């Protein structure tokens, strides 16, 4: 759907901060994908003889109370945290865009059903639901992703619905009707692509939001093993012993990824406006 926009997306309209964000986000993803090759140690290998070592040559970011290498754990943790964030965002945006677009475009009872469902989902206190269900199901990537997706789709749904409601009134959509285009063509080719920009921006910002949310869940004891949140929680217990590296490095990883996706999201907001593009 974004064919032809790829170059513009990558150029990010020459926005320097956004490029930093793109670089940061790409780096985080690369590190996560290549973790097995990059990690100097097995992240689960315990070695009590070498526990709580401060950062040094052997263990660049130190070791934890069981002697596991912190750098390796952060690299493998990136896989967990980013998988949770990306999958849940992709899923929630997928659900939200589909339902919101249908409701906004067709209106009437379709819209009624979609919006009442949105109200229903928003009426459930999300944190309570997450805590309860995860506690029952045992924390796992699948459970957290599904729960996050099922509770987060109303935001993109509302966003795209509002966009579509205003697009429907635009002359180019009226022109498409006058030209005898089918409703499916009008929706998929003329309406939705013009409504996606804010959703894509929101989704990018959603990734950073979810990374932080997952860390919060971990603090409630509901984190997936090895996720950054879980690492942070474990490190916290050792803060009094002076092992700062167990909290500072996972915390920094969370903060840097959140900042990177935030910068990228803000940059996309500018870059996706077709009027920002120079003559081609």
């Amino acid at each position, binding site marked *: 759907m974004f064919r032809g926009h790829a170059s513009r997306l990558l150029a990010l309209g020459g926005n320097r901060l956004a490029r930093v964000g793109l670089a940061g986000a790409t780096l985080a993803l690369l590190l996560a994908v290549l973790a097995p090759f990059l990690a100097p140690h097995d992240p689960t290998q315990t070695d009590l003889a070498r526990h709580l070592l401060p950062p040094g040559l052997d263990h660049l970011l130190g070791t934890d109370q069981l002697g596991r290498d912190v750098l390796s754990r952060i690299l493998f943790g990136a896989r967990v945290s980013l998988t949770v964030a990306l999958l849940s965002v992709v899923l929630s945006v997928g659900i939200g865009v589909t339902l919101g677009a249908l409701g906004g475009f067709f209106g009437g009872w379709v819209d009624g059903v979609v919006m009442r469902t949105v109200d229903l989902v928003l009426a459930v206190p999300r944190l309570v639901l997450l805590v309860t269900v995860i506690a029952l199901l045992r924390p796992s990537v699948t459970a957290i992703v599904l729960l996050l997706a099922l509770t987060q789709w109303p935001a993109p749904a509302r966003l795209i619905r509002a966009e579509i409601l205003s697009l429907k009134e*635009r002359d*180019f959509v*009226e*022109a*498409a009707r006058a*030209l*005898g285009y089918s409703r499916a063509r009008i929706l998929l080719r003329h309406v939705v692509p*013009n409504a996606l920009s804010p959703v894509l921006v929101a989704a990018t910002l959603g990734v950073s939001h979810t990374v932080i949310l997952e860390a919060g869940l971990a603090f409630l004891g509901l984190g997936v093993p090895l996720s950054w949140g879980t690492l942070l929680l474990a490190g916290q217990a050792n803060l009094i012993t002076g092992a700062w590296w167990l909290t500072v490095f996972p915390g920094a990883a969370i903060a840097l990824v959140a900042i990177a996706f935030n910068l990228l999201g803000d940059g996309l907001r500018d870059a996706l406006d*077709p009027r920002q593009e120079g003559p*081609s």
Partner: protein
Amino acid sequence: MSALLELQELTVTFPARRGEGPFTAVDGVSFTVARGETLGIVGESGAGKTTLGRAALRLVEPSHGTVRFDGADVGSLDEAGLRRLRRRAQMVFQDPMGSLNPRLRVGQALREVLTVHGTPRERRDRDVAELLRRVELSEDVLEARPHELSGGQCQRVGIARALAVRPELVVLDEPVSALDVSIQAQILNLLLRLQSELALSFLFISHDLAVVHRMSDRILVLREGRVVEEGTPDMVFRQPSHPYTRTLLRAALPQMERG
């Protein structure tokens, strides 16, 4: 000669909205447009001009009355019939840039019309080139998106898009109101030439009495959804029978006296 478009007692009422009652935009309007003829519709904002133009193409559903296109009742057309109507009756809009999808290049937008209406693939490029030639645009614009074009260029693309289906009737809804005087003259001339070359019928909607006078064979003056005056341009100008027409004329007068 039989009428190409015929409206009988057409009424369009929009349902009540929050805090407001139902609103009748068009109230019992009847007229005909013959083949090759331009019927000008003039009125101020809120007169119902735009709704009338859209109802004529069944982009808005009338609440009463009938629209006939080439003798057939437009109101009773099924999906397939409506599609055939879209090939014979087209529309050009007021906002030249806003009537084009901002994400589509000019070439894509024109090719899309041809694709949807079944022009064989091998003929599409040739037809697009022919359309550009008709509206006096160079092929350089094919790769441009609307925001890279001037208002006049956008409106030419809008006209080319409407012509792509080879229509017999074009509803022109304020086609030059958003354009500068010198560009307006270019577009009006283009429309006059296209009409004679392609034997088109126009429903020409405008708030500008001078423009409607210049472009039309007959004029309807619309006020609050009703026809208050009808006649040839010179009749309406020389002997306006309705006080409202006289007011409109007085407002436009210093400009009209020139030339």
